[in-house]
Every structure is written in C-alpha cells, then in structure tokens.
C-alpha cells in the first residue's frame, strides 16, 4: 500500500502527541504531581497510531492499563487527559477514574482498564452492537501479550469468531508481562499462533514501524467492515520505560543493552528519517510539529494545574444513571 503524505503526517502526528503526553506525564510523576499508578506507552506509539489511523470516528476501541496512547491516537484531548491524571474535576472522568480508566465514549474509546484482559470481552460486545446495527462500524481490542494468558481473552476471541463479529484483536507484544519476560509465561514465541485456534487469520508486524502496523490494520479493519469477521494483528514492540512509572524503583529485570537496542528502533525517529529520505518531509517540518504539540502539552499542564479538584459531594454522583420518571 502507498500512503499519501497527508496520511503519513497524520500517523506521525498521532505518535508525537502520544510521546509528548507520556513524557510530560512521566516528568510530572517523578515530581510527585500525579497521584496513583502510571503506565507509560512510550516506545509503543506506532501500534496505537497505526491502528487508530485506520479507524473512523464512530469505530470503537477497548484499551489496557497502558491506555493513554490509545486515547490520544483516537483523538483524545490533552487538557482533559492531563486534568484526569491529576485527579481534577475537569478531567475526562471528572477525577473518578484516573490514568487506568481514562476514556471518551464519544470518541469510541471505551476505557483504559485496570484488569488485564478485561477489555477484550467488552470489545466483543461493541462489535456485536456494531454488527446488530449494520452500519459498518468495527471494534478493536488492544491487549498485551500477557493478557493472552487470562481466560477472558480466550472467551472473547472464541466468541467473536463463533458469532463472526466485526472486530480486530490488536496485540501489543512488548515481551514482558509486567516484570516477567514472555518466555517464562507462555510456551510460544508468537502470540498470533493463538489466532488459528479460534479460526481467525493473524499477522505479525513490526510494531516499531507505523506504516507496517497501519497496512495490517487497514486490511484487518476492512475485512471486519466488509463482513469478513475477526482477525488478529501481533505488533512486536517494546516499552521504553518500566511497567509502572519511569524508573520504577530502579528494578532491573531488563538489561541496559536490551533497552538500548530497542531504543535505536524508536518508532518516531525512524519514521521521520524515512519521510525525509522519501522526500515527504523536511527536518523543519518536524521541528514545527514538535514545537506546536509541545505548546499544546504546556497548555494542558497549565489547564490541569489551574483546574479545581472535585468536591466531596461528588463521591455519590454517577454511581447510577438517574432514572427519574422511569419505571
């Protein structure tokens, strides 16, 4: 597939937005300005960007505990995201969800999720609704390699295939389930080997190459949209920071060499080099884009810091949808 320069800039922009948001979140966390847990998506930007770049606004995605990147790639607003990370009332979840539950249903982003594997059954439900309505919408379940070891994933994959639903299973294989390497927790090297067991096609792509991810996503999404059923994409990728936070208490479960090798394959910088080589962009173009988006991040941090915290009277709000006049 050949992609227009506009599409390449679009994919690049999604990746840079994720990178800048996550780097800023990491800095704020290190400065003790963010409460709670923080799972950064840095290094994996090509996956969310390449896949979401193949989706329409009314398509749905489910996410993981490492979910900021998915929301950004689906069009998430920096201000509301940063405010949510700080627990402010202007955040996406009004301070009720935080990093692990960040969501925007109006963008079809059905939530980051604190339970590993739990997003996939929900994506199956969204895909069922999309097929039921018959308007050609699709759903994408993002999940990590580790979540393919939990029952919910298998139930979801099997049910999606049994019901022939318009869904794409997008695996971000970053080789570690939290702090444990993949080869200690599964006896296969490629997660996509599991796809055949459910009766769906699957492909492996270089998850550090946004064009490769995007090509596979376009094909899988179109298959789903046209009634061809589920498929799986396994993107081989890597998280540059730790499972949780940035330096994560100095835990050493990966060698410096391993991290360094993967960083050489940085999905953004390698893509920029390619766009320049191919005459699609100049370094000055990228300087402008980074500067513009950095300003957006600065604005978002300011917005979040200036925003009020929710008041205690909000604790009982939105436990239930009000049913005034119903029944």
């Amino acid at each position, binding site marked *: 597939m050949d992609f227009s320069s506009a599409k390449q800039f679009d994919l690049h922009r999604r990746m840079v937005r994720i990178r800048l948001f996550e780097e800023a979140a990491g800095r704020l966390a290190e400065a003790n300005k963010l409460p709670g847990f923080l799972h950064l998506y840095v290094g994996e930007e090509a996956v969310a960007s390449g896949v979401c770049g193949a989706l329409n606004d009314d398509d*749905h995605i*489910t996410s993981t505990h490492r979910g900021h990147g998915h929301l950004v790639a689906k069009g998430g607003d920096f201000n509301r995201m940063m405010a949510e990370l700080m627990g402010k009332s202007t*955040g*996406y*979840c*009004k*301070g*009720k*969800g935080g990093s692990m*539950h960040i*969501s*925007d*249903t*109006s963008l079809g982003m*059905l*939530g980051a*999720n*604190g*339970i590993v594997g*739990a997003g*996939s*059954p*929900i*994506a*199956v*439900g*969204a*895909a*069922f*609704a*999309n097929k*039921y*309505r018959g308007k050609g919408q699709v*759903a994408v379940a993002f999940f990590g390699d580790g979540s393919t070891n939990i*029952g*919910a994933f298998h*139930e*979801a994959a*099997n*049910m999606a295939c*049994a*019901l022939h639903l318009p869904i794409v299973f997008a695996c971000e294989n970053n080789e570690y389930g939290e702090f444990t390497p993949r080869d200690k927790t599964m006896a296969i090297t490629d997660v996509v080997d599991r796809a055949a067991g459910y009766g769906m096609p699957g492909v492996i792509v270089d998850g550090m190459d946004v064009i490769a991810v995007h090509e596979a996503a376009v094909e899988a999404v179109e298959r789903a949209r046209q009634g061809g059923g589920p498929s799986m994409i396994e993107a081989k990728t890597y998280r540059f920071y730790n499972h949780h936070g940035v330096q994560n208490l100095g835990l050493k479960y990966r060698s410096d060499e391993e991290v360094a090798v993967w960083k050489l394959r940085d999905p953004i910088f390698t893509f920029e080099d390619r766009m320049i080589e191919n005459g699609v962009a100049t370094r000055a173009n990228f300087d402008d884009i980074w500067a513009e988006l950095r300003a957006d991040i600065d604005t978002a941090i300011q917005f979040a810091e200036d925003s009020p915290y929710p008041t205690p009277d909000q604790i009982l*709000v*939105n*436990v*239930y*949808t009000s*049913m005034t006049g*119903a*029944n």
Partner: protein
Amino acid sequence: MSDDRKLTYAQAFNEAVSQMMEADPDVFCAGEDIGAFGGVFGTFAGLQAKFGEKRVVDTPISEQAIVGLGVGASVTGLRPIVDLMFMDFICVAFDQIVNQAAKLKYMFGGDATLPMTITTAGGGGLSAAAQHSQSLEALLCHIPGLKVVMPSNPYDMKGLMISCIKENNPTVMIKHKRLLGMSAPVPTEAYGIPLGKGNIIRPGKDVTIVAYARMANEALIAAKELAEDGIDCEIIDPRTLQPLDSDLLIDSAKKTNRVLVAQEAVRFGGLGAEIASQIQELAFDYLDAPVSRIGAPFSPVPFSPALESHYIPDSKSIVKGVRDVMARR
C-alpha cells in the same frame, strides 16, 4: 383477555422479555442454550422462533464473555439481556459484573450508560448440590452500581423484569428455580413495578416478617399457621434488594415492634444482617425484641434430599423464628 388469566413465574418472565423485544428493537438476548432450546428452565422458550437468531443469540459456554458482550453492547447503545444459566456461574463472570458493568459509569465520570440486564436462576431445592443451588445475592448487593431484583411470584416477575429491561443501569434479575412453575393471575398488558419499592404482601400488627423470593411464599404459609394462634404477621417482600426499600421496613418495624428476616442464603453476612442492622439503627426505640434472622447454615448447599431439606429454611423454620421473637419480653 380476562384479568384472571394465569401464567407461571417462568411464563411471566418470558412474556416480559417478549413484550419488551416487541417494543424496542435495541433489546436482544444472549446466553447458553437460550435459542432453539429455550433455556434450560424454558424461560426463553419460543423467543428465537419469534425474534430470530439475530436477537436471541446462543453463546459459547463463556460467562465472562457473555457478560462482557452485555457490557460492550450496552455501552455502545443496545439494551442487552444476558443470561447466566445458574446463579453460581456469576462467580465465573465476576470481573465483568463487578469490575466492569458496575463501575464503568462511575470510573468514566458519568460518560457511560449501561442499560443491561443479567438474568440468572438462583436458589436450592432441586438436589443440584453446592455449585447449582446457591443464593449469592448478598455478593451482588454489596457492589455499588448494580441493582438486584428477586421476585417471589408471577405478577412481580413480569413487572420487575419489564422494569429491569427499561432500566438504564446494570441490573441482575434472579429467578428462583423452585418458583418457576408457580402459577398466578398476570395481566396481559406490559406493566412495570418500580425497582426499589417493596410490597406488604400480608398486613399484620404483631410482628414483621421480611422475606423475599421463595421465602416470601414460605412466610405466607407460616403466617396462616401463626394466625391460628392469634399471632398477626405482617409480611414485607422487598422485591428489589438493591436499592432496598428501607423506609417500608422501618415503618413496619415501628408499627409491629418485632421483626424476623427470612432468607434462603447462608445467614452469615447475608441481606438479613443488613436489614437487621438498618432496623436497629433507625427503629431501636420501637423494638420489643432483637431483630432476628433465619438463614441457611454456614456450609455449602448439600446434595442429598435428606440433608438439603434440613438446610434450606421453610415455613416451619419461620414459624419457629416468629415464636422465638414473640417470646421475648
């Protein structure tokens, strides 16, 4: 159709689902064996023939994915009814029920609506042993975000099920397996019974019995026997356990001054404990005796009829419980 048309509890459930599916094209059902087979208890009989495979869906034996299907479909605009064959199987699906369905709206700051109904069959009395007989309603009532309904008769079943389907929150409808064949007059038109509203099923002045699902019927039998001894029981069926109609319970306690709560579930940590606690907090000065509780012993449900018949409370245990409450001076 005459007003005294009778339906069984199972038929009342079926008619509620059917009428709501006719009224709202966004309503669909999914679960194990509910299609051509009509559900293992027949509660979905004929619905697939009437509404087609698109709207009455046979699923794999995958309780997490069944509830997940309901979560994802409801949050994207449909109105699912997802069936878990036995109540015991909520344990298999507990992450999707407790951590997803119940919490999405709150975690998303209100940016989600989940108009889904989980239907299931609870209760013992069929020698189905420890994994197919439980009354686990207390686990569900403990979770903010869920509503929990346990009807005791065909009329309430139809009205409550219609309200569950119309409800814009995740709701669990617990059918009692031993009531499925109970027959009683049920109006033909669609009607709702508000969730959270209890019912005084027998007015009385001497003692209040709070009982739901099968125990409400056992309480009615007990009240007849007690009436012969001049004890006038008021029986309250909360019908909805979450939210609980606390006002109705408190008012009755203030009137009769004596209360017994009867539940089929294990007594420890059950709904009876919550009800007793609320009554002593809000009506302590009116009580002539401690609020008492009837419930199952602290063991799994046993298999043999010789054991199970002693395990599950019945009208006799309620009679004894009321006499004990009345004996306090």
